[in-house]
């Protein structure tokens, strides 16, 4: 991967606001997108590849963790390979006025892995809350969806389960620049 010119000279003290990321941050992101090196000193290896000090890479990672540019550092389990074969995108039509309250309650359930408010496109698409529900079988997944529906009561004005039938493309998110 091509490296931005001159990142080795970039100073640690460079003025930045909390959320902005610069060329060296981007280079660190690009260098770790495929994963962290599986060697005893992974941050040193990343730093050497970028021509900077290990301390600098670690300071930048800590700052990006603090500002939320990095959500977390860890493993991403493959649900499907681990036996969770019935993974459904479950979409809900909820009253707009209650979406934040209900979204938080649904998101707090341990079998829900994503919970987002997204726009409706009526009449074709009346749903405004998206969740991912994971189960080992469709029966298990549907029982979990039933629990959510029971919790929502009449706030559930309609929901649908969309099972994925095939992966057409899967890459790690690309970073431009």
């Amino acid at each position, binding site marked *: 991967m091509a490296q931005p010119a001159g990142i080795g000279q970039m100073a640690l003290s460079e003025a930045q606001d909390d959320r902005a990321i610069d060329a060296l941050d981007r280079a660190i992101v690009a260098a770790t997108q495929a994963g962290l090196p599986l060697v005893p000193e992974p941050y040193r290896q990343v730093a050497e590849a970028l021509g900077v000090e290990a301390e600098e890479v670690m300071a930048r990672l800590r700052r990006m*963790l603090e500002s939320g540019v990095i959500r977390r550092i860890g493993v991403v389990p493959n649900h499907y390979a681990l036996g969770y074969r019935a993974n459904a995108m479950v979409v809900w039509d909820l009253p707009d006025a209650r979406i934040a309250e209900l979204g938080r309650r649904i998101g707090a359930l341990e079998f829900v892995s994503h*919970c987002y408010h997204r*726009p409706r*496109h009526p009449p074709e698409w009346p749903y405004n809350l*998206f969740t991912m529900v994971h189960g080992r079988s469709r029966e298990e997944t549907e029982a979990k969806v039933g629990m959510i529906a029971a919790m929502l009561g009449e706030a559930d004005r309609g929901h649908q389960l969309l099972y994925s*039938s095939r992966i057409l493309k899967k890459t790690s998110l690309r970073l431009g620049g």
Partner: protein
Amino acid sequence: MKLDALDRAIINGLQGGFPVCERPYAAAAARLGTTEAELIERLERLLEAGLLSRFGPMYHAERMGGGLTLAALHAGPEAYERVAEQVNAHPEVAHNYAREHHLDMWFVLATETPERIAEVIAAIEAETGCRVFNLPKLEEFFVGLRFEV
């Protein structure tokens, strides 16, 4: 591949919080009651076996200044393979899933700038002849961390 107690501890216990320090595997291994070398070897095996899809920092695309959205279209069985090929040909399409619904193709677009999302959607509509429903995230209530094996 059969998982033992240590594999499960790694999958359950290392979904976040991997340390940022000189010897992070040694630090994480101490918490899991194992050694640096053993942890590295287990991670290698779990990744190779596909039980982990990734290990490393998870970035928040929107906070990096890029555009990110979920989009869906109806291709129908006849045009399906052609449309999938046309959609996948865009490098901005990160994931694409077939789903059992009238809207039978669901893809994630990740672009360098937020403005680029609309351009890619317009290009996909023009090429495929399908209407694309753009479903950007308006608010995030939860994004998962607690998968247990």
